[in-house]
């Protein structure tokens, strides 16, 4: 056999980007030839569209947006970062005060998370593929769909405090391409996997371009407030480790394309306010562990496609304000534990399909604020009777005592008797039929 390795490489060069990279890796360490060393610019070898930025190469950094004053020292502002992909998509910032700062050891662009950001003008057609984002806290690959026009790297909401490198490729990277790119950035000082981050507040907020979210290490995370808020293009979510998470307020709010949600570990979670608010493509919800949850205000508000709701453990829940408001596809509701509940203000308001509600649901509640709780529902007579009788059973005779129902059926004489009892205890009650 006389074929040389060089010949083999030439053959594979013509076949495509993936073959080049895979073959190159196989060559590593073999024979007397220099091992192939991956560089992110190799991803663009065949003229792929996208961009690649790396502050490791200081010659690509300029203090001004025009690219006339080079960055020369740790602490200089960065107004322009040259695209290393060969596509000429440099990132720039015209406003002086909004420029990130170049820092060394490792080379990175530090963000003040007030206004620092670099802007890329994404060319016509946009980029639909993979983004590898390396920050000081973690380096991961995302599926992205970025429309043509201005796109910001940095900003107030960012998964880290510095940009250590970014690649946008206008096609889906293979797993080996992703891992090679991630490793390249990590070897140059980027954070590895977010495993040491405790607060993920606002990290991926407003990232509507993310179509695929990776299985990152969130095992140290205690706070996830607004972490994925407005990630409107995510259709699924990975089974990340949230076992240490205590606060999930608005974590997935407005993830309007999520059609399913995994059975994550929320056993330490105490606050779920607006956690899944307006996830209006979810048709079902998993039986997550909410046994430590105390506040569920707005948690599932506007989840308009939910057709069923699981029997989650709400035994510690005190606030259910607007929790299921406008879950307009729910037809029935499970017998959740409301024994710690103090406020149900507007909890099921606008659940216009809600017909069936169980008996004994409120027998042991601690507070009587049901203002507008069942307004614009479709409760059957048995269900409204169930609710009224249960409220009477609770014995609440102090504090806020208000109940509203409209739509659906009027109560029977059983329900009316319960209303009489409630009114004798100071409740204000309004029901369908006007009794």
């Amino acid at each position: 056999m006389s074929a040389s390795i060089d010949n083999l490489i030439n053959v594979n060069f013509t076949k495509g980007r993936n073959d080049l990279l895979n073959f190159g890796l196989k060559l590593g360490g073999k024979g007397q030839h220099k091992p192939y060393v991956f560089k992110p610019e190799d991803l663009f070898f065949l003229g792929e569209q996208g961009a690649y930025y790396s502050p490791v190469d200081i010659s690509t950094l300029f203090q001004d947006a025009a690219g006339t004053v080079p960055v020369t020292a740790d602490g200089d502002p960065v107004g322009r970062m040259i695209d290393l992909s060969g596509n000429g998509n440099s990132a720039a910032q015209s406003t002086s005060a909004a420029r990130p700062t170049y820092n060394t050891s490792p080379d990175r662009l530090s963000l003040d998370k007030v206004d620092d950001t670099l802007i890329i003008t994404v060319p016509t057609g946009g980029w639909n593929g993979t983004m590898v984002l390396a920050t000081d806290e973690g380096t991961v690959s995302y599926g992205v769909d970025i429309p043509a026009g201005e796109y910001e790297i940095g900003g107030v909401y960012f998964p880290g405090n510095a940009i250590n490198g970014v690649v946008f490729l206008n096609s889906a990277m293979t797993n080996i391409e992703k891992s090679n790119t991630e490793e390249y950035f990590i070897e140059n000082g980027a954070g590895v996997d977010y495993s040491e981050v405790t607060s993920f507040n606002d990290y991926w907020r407003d990232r509507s371009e993310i179509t695929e979210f990776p299985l990152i290490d969130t095992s140290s995370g205690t706070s996830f407030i607004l972490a994925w808020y407005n990630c409107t293009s995510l259709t699924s979510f990975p089974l990340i480790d949230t076992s240490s998470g205590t606060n999930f307020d608005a974590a997935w709010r407005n993830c309007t394309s999520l059609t399913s949600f995994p059975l994550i570990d929320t056993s330490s979670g105490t606050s779920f306010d607006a956690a899944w608010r307006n996830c209006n493509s979810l048709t079902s919800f998993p039986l997550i562990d909410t046994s430590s949850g105390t506040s569920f205000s707005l948690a599932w508000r506007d989840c308009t496609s939910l057709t069923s709701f699981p029997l989650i453990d709400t035994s510690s829940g005190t606030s259910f304000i607007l929790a299921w408001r406008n879950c307009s596809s729910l037809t029935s509701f499970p017998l959740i534990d409301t024994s710690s509940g103090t406020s149900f203000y507007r909890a099921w308001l606008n659940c216009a399909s809600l017909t069936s509600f169980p008996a004994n649901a409120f027998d042991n509640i601690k507070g009587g604020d049901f203002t507008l709780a069942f307004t614009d529902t479709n409760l059957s007579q048995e269900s409204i009777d169930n609710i009224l009788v249960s409220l009477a059973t609770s014995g609440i005779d102090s504090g806020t005592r208000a109940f509203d129902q409209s739509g659906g059926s009027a109560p029977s004489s059983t329900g009316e008797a319960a209303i009489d009892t409630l009114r004798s205890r100071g409740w204000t009650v309004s029901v369908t039929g006007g009794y």
Partner: protein
Amino acid sequence: MMTKYQQRATIAVPEPLIAEANQLALALGESAADDKTFNTAAWQDAEGNLYAVSSTVAKPIFAQIAGQPLQAPDHAPDMDLAAATRSQALLQINGGIATPDVIAVILGDRLESAQDHIKALGLTPIPQDTP
């Protein structure tokens, strides 16, 4: 080589003063786009007054220049010098928390964090809308 940007300046502009403060930014800055320095009033003080905040590394001469008579720079010869001068008169450097009648500035070492400066200004992000 040592950077010339040895300081960090974090500036809180009361919402009604944003337009004029941007003229000051134009006069003190280095780019024709510096009239976009202060944008959304996304921060508030304890009384609920709203502010736009910007933070940037700055050269040590910043405080001195900020106190001198302003001139329209080459990058913005047609700027509103009167508006910039009115804003300049409201500058309060390292004078404590932000208030609606001043443009409060925290000027410190470049390694100080913008977030710490914002705390020193007594500002917090405006909370999310709820019900």
